[in-house]
């Protein structure tokens, strides 16, 4: 009983402290449990690996901001790196100003890491990869891209005319894009599915925060999306798949966090169980 009283009166800052330790310690002493790849992740990977011919185009939608970057930023980097490794062209697009900064950072990072680990196959901004300018209008932008991408944006995020960029050669609209992977933690995913996929038949994959992952299984079953990366785990699985190819030396942000993720999850389960024990013991005592 003493114990029950103790835990129900515990200051929450102790819980905060233990949680912090649960996450910091695994970073210092990593274990590295093996992990299985889930089918929704594998299908995006396989599509980029096998179904897109060299020179094909992958469009990455960076519709997230720093608040969810921990989960989505690793996805942007690893998918872009994978596309580059197959000599595909990568276009980043964003419907929000905050996403432009994220995309720009991802491009910067991937290019730097790629060129460091592959000196014989250098990639260039504007030739292999670029960021389309941020244009407001959300659904209107998505629809207009289906008609004419160059006309939608006029310029890339750096102020270069799209019509003069090598990366845009032969790209008119969604018909020339092999796959779009939309990275977002909000309902903007629906905007892309409704307009780009529904109206123009753009092939889509989703990368989303774990919060929304359960919800989006509906679109996988209805085949509106070919696959999905859900949260940090999804990103980690993708990093593992790409790692087997051994072409990209960038930091594996998602994978190194997996031990911490494991220990934190165990901690959460223990918390819920302890809390409920206290609740039931108390309830029984009050009932008597």
């Amino acid at each position: 009983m003493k114990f029950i009283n103790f835990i129900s009166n515990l200051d929450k800052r102790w819980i905060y402290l233990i949680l912090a330790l649960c996450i910091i310690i695994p970073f210092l002493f990593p274990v590295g449990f093996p992990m299985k790849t889930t089918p929704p992740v594998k299908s995006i990977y396989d599509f980029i690996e096998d179904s897109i011919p060299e020179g094909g185009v992958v469009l990455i939608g960076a519709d997230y901001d720093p608040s969810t970057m921990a989960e989505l930023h690793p996805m942007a980097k690893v998918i872009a790196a994978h596309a580059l490794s197959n000599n595909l062209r990568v276009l980043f697009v964003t419907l929000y100003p905050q996403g432009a900064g994220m995309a720009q950072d991802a491009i910067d990072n991937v290019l730097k890491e790629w060129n460091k680990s592959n000196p014989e196959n250098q990639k260039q901004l504007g030739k292999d990869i670029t960021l389309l300018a941020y244009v407001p209008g959300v659904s209107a932008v998505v629809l207009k891209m289906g008609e004419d991408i160059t006309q939608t944006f006029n310029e890339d995020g750096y102020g270069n005319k799209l019509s003069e960029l090598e990366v845009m050669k032969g790209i008119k609209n969604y018909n020339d894009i092999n796959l779009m992977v939309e990275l977002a933690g909000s309902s903007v995913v629906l905007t892309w599915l409704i307009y780009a996929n529904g109206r123009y038949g753009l092939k889509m994959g989703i990368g989303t925060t774990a919060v929304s992952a359960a919800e989006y299984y509906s679109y996988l079953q209805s085949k509106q999306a070919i696959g999905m990366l859900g949260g940090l785990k999804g990103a980690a699985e993708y990093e593992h798949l790409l790692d087997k190819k051994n072409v990209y030396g960038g930091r594996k942000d998602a994978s190194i966090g997996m031990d911490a993720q494991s220990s934190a999850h165990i901690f959460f389960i223990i918390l819920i169980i302890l809390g409920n024990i206290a609740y039931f013991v108390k309830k029984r005592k009050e009932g008597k």
Partner: protein
Amino acid sequence: MFLRRTLPLLVSAIFGIALILQFFVPHPASKSFYNLMLDWLIIVSAFTYLIAVQSTVELHFTKIKRKVEGWQYSIIVLVSLFVTALLGVFGGAFMPTTLWMKIFPSVKPTDTTPLMYTYLYMQMPMQSTIFSLLAFYMASAAFRSFRARSFDATLLLVTAGIVTLGRVPLGEFIYKGLPDVVEWILKYPNMAAQRGILIGVQLGIIATSIKIILGIERKYLGGGK
């Protein structure tokens, strides 16, 4: 009266109906109308961004003027907003502007812009940190308030437990089949309920859209009747 209410309602009704009908007409004439509308929409919505700026500036301005409790913090908002915008507009967003390079001859076109410094080293860490606080709130709530108080809540917590464990490598280490169990839950029972909810929500959204076009839903026009 005409400008205040009738015209806006007419505008939304006319363009709404025209664009619904456009969907069903594949003729090139309808297609060019559609393209024109999209161009217009993009340019007009470029100005809607101003509203967000205006309302924030106004809010903090009034706070300072009225000396509301904590008004000093509003000064921080306005100053940082002004400085960042100034740096961004003159220094360039993702590539330094020619003006900036003229003022600072040592800056190369490939250099990081001043705006990106504020983004990468101030906005990014702060915004992501604020949301990471949720991990702590969640832990304390897990301990103090997530209770199996009914059959429904128990079922919810048990599923949650399975998913939480099954989605990390450690869960797989404990029991090899766990990821498949989780995948099954997500793919079938979860998917079915999510879809049921989604169908209801979509019907609601469509109903609201139709009411806007019909002019019987006017809340989006803001205050007053």
